């Protein structure tokens, strides 16, 4: 690089190299970053702005007038919103805790399995990779009322006297929803935790065993604390996924019966794309984003506090 602005004494070759590196860096990052700014961050800003306006696509002649916090006030006074928030929280807590427990069991089993690890990996990876829509349909089929295999098995086993109409009950409808989510995403959790387990120094376990610690003690005192970073990462990914749940419930229950299983994302979708209330829908969108953001910040803090103690980062 040639620099001819006379100020040569302060610009060592190192300096100009750094400048070249910086320029190249930004040039290479710019296209990808520009795309993300344009298609993700700008729309989000627009959503925030829209949420302060009255904007109803069914009544375009009303235009888009500034209404301040009116949309948010309406939201807070709508029981359906609070119910959808409660459904989301319930779904997230129930499915994520089941997934973490099952995922841990599966990861421990996979780590010990000497043979057939490839088979296990393949079996659990396919549910993870298939479309959520397909997972929802499979479980809807299993839980059908008239010829569903779940009813048939439960009746044959003497647990039920007659078929249950799972999707018609406000409580029973949750069963296939949560099972489908657990079935689809436990593998991901298990693989994350398995990666964490493989990062733990095996000599730690050996020396603990020599010192006479039982299996349970080794698990709770050594394995779990060392696995903390991996568990946290799995928790972050799964919770943030669970609170934006849409596909699974849209296809499995449609939010029903009534709105008994409707999460926030589904309520927002119906406000936006079915009722075309864009202003109100934007307020809902901002709310769900804020919840996700808040959780992400809390988790990042937790992870940050964990830095340097964990075993899984190379």
């Amino acid at each position: 690089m040639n620099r001819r602005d006379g100020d040569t004494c302060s610009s060592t070759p190192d300096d100009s190299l750094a400048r070249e590196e910086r320029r190249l860096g930004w040039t290479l990052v710019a296209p990808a970053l520009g795309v993300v700014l344009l298609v993700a961050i700008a729309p989000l800003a627009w959503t925030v702005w829209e949420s302060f306006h009255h904007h109803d696509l069914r009544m375009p002649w009303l235009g888009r007038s500034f209404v301040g916090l009116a949309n948010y006030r309406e939201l807070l006074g709508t029981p359906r919103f609070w119910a959808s928030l409660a459904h989301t929280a319930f779904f997230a807590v129930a499915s994520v805790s089941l997934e973490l427990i099952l995922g841990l069991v599966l990861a421990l089993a996979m780590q010990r399995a000497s043979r057939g690890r490839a088979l296990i990996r393949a079996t659990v990876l396919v549910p993870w990779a298939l479309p959520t829509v397909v997972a929802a349909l499979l479980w809807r089929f299993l839980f059908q009322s008239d010829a569903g295999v779940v009813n048939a098995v439960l009746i044959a086993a003497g647990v039920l006297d007659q078929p249950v109409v799972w999707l018609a009950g406000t409580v029973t409808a949750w069963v296939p929803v949560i099972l489908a989510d657990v079935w689809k995403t436990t593998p991901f959790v298990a693989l994350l935790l398995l990666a964490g387990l493989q990062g733990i120094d095996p000599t730690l376990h050996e020396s603990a065993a020599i010192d006479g610690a039982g299996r349970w003690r080794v698990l709770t005192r050594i394995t779990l604390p060392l696995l903390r970073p991996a568990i946290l990462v799995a928790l972050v990914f799964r919770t943030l996924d669970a609170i934006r749940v849409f596909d699974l419930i849209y296809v499995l229950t449609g939010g029903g019966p009534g709105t008994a299983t409707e999460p926030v994302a589904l309520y927002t979708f119906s406000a936006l794309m079915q009722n075309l209330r864009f202003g109100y829908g934007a307020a809902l969108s901002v709310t769900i984003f804020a919840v996700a953001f808040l959780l992400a910040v809390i988790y990042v803090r937790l992870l940050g506090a964990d830095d340097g103690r964990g075993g899984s980062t190379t």
Partner: protein
Amino acid sequence: MTTWLRRGALAFILLLFAFPFYWAIVASLTPEASLFQAPSLVPRTLVLDHYRALFTERDFGTPIRNSLIVAGATTALCITLGTLAAYALARLRFRGRSAVLGALLAVTMFPQISIVSPLYILLRALHLLDTYPGLVLPYLTFAMPLTVWLLTTYFRQLPGELEDAARVDGASRWQTFTRVLLPLAMPGIATTAILTFIYCWNEFLFALSFTLGPERWTVPVAIALFRGQYQVPWGQILAAAVVATAPVAALVLAFQRRIVQGLTSGAVKG
């Protein structure tokens, strides 16, 4: 004793995971008439009727073509731009680098629903609703950050010595990138492309919101909106589910080791 118990438990869990597939495949091959009788674990008669109907009566080929085009185009775009960005983020030192990475990670945590309405209005204004670009553009919102993030972790893992050696030999940064690092990063780029493709193939919310009819439906939308004339056409739905799963299952089985590595390293090294 305990080994057998553990093996038995593991086998049982795996059977539970595999059962829904088995059941769906069997049902997709069962004649419509016997679908609603008492289910039997081992099928008596198997027919390809539902698969045939899927492509003759339903034109399921259209959603498959749509999905291939949209997922393929999105993946190609993301890999091209993402590789450049990831190289810079992993290998060059410049101020703002970690801010860019942080912003990209934050975008992956967005709830998709919160940008559906602005994207809808934008696409409508550009007359892109119900078109292929009208899906590729929204897909970039989740695919681009994912690609850059995964590729950055791959580029970071490459040894620095080769790069230094090339530099000493007088290669420019750009030459070092294209001649030395890019060939080394190819396995990582391939894995990232597979993962991106799978995410696009499976996407539902955007495809549901930004297409207007069966002509542009992607596979997940077409399956979800399957309707029968009198009753739920379970045979065809499950046949469609099997067809929709086949490509991702094949990719996953063929590249499982790499995919697991990509998934876990991308997440754990955050």
